[in-house]
């Protein structure tokens, strides 16, 4: 981000930009934090139903998605290294790989959700409302948490696309790459949250 007000003709230096990003990540963390807290509390009161409902989730897809996200986290981290070493082409390729992996993640998610929808299991549906109370709660959390997470995947991917264009335009280069660093940080956050979502939703049966 450049700054137009006079007296501030410099670009925002990387420390400032990065600090802003970290603070923003904290708010994201607490946004999900509220959901994690709700999860903890509701699981405490409905542990039976949670076990039962969690068993319905597909561990295989969940694992694949975990692997995909971890890999994408690595590619985006490598992309910073590449840009630092002035290897623009590699940096862009690594970002493209990251976005590709994000796509894979979303496709998996799509299959997972549409599988549920085929069974008429979406929030508010007849089937849904006729489940046991505790299962309703679990699925509510499941949809809300994975849905919000998926939204973050999309935002993160868009951010990465923007970054690619900025690198192409030469605005982000080995001497100045706050945007790349920040989008990478954001992307890692997406990964970080999934690291917790995965065991909580899929594994604890």
């Amino acid at each position, binding site marked *: 981000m450049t700054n137009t007000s006079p007296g501030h003709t410099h670009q925002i*230096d990387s420390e400032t930009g990065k600090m802003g990003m970290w603070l923003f990540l904290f708010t994201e963390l607490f946004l999900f934090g509220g959901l*994690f807290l709700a999860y903890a509390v509701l699981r405490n009161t409905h542990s039976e139903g949670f076990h039962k409902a969690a068993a319905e989730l597909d561990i295989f897809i969940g694992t694949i998605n975990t692997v995909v996200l*971890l890999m994408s986290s690595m590619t985006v*981290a490598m992309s910073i290294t590449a840009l630092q070493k002035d290897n623009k082409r590699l940096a862009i390729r690594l970002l493209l790989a990251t976005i590709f992996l994000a796509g894979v993640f979303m496709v998996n998610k799509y299959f997972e959700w549409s599988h549920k929808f085929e069974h008429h299991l979406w929030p508010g549906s007849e089937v849904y409302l006729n489940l046991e109370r505790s299962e309703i709660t679990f699925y509510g959390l499941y949809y809300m948490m994975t849905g919000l997470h998926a939204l973050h995947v999309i935002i993160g991917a868009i951010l990465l696309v923007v970054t690619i264009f900025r690198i192409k335009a030469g605005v982000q280069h080995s001497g100045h790459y706050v945007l790349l660093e920040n989008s990478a940080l954001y992307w*890692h956050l997406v990964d970080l949250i999934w690291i917790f979502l995965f065991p909580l939703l899929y594994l*604890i049966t």
Partner: protein
Amino acid sequence: MKNGEKPHISSYTSHAIVLIALLALTFITVFVSEINFGAFSVGVALIVASVKAVTVLTYFMHLKFENRFTVWMVSGVFIVFALVIVITFIDYLLR
């Protein structure tokens, strides 16, 4: 960078090693979840997840090479969140 200090450049191999470690941890949790540890299974899963999270934070997110203050902030924030959970559970567990 300020004061002309050189930013740390992590090597490609170090990133790859971190990934391998993370994948290994993932498979361990999936594997462990198949065995039933009863009440402990949640604990085990969460501990592994925390280890993974710390790994991502330190290496991928460069915390290891950031200034001290950022590290303090991040740890502080996690502590605050943990306290919120603990305090809420003073209510739920002792009811």
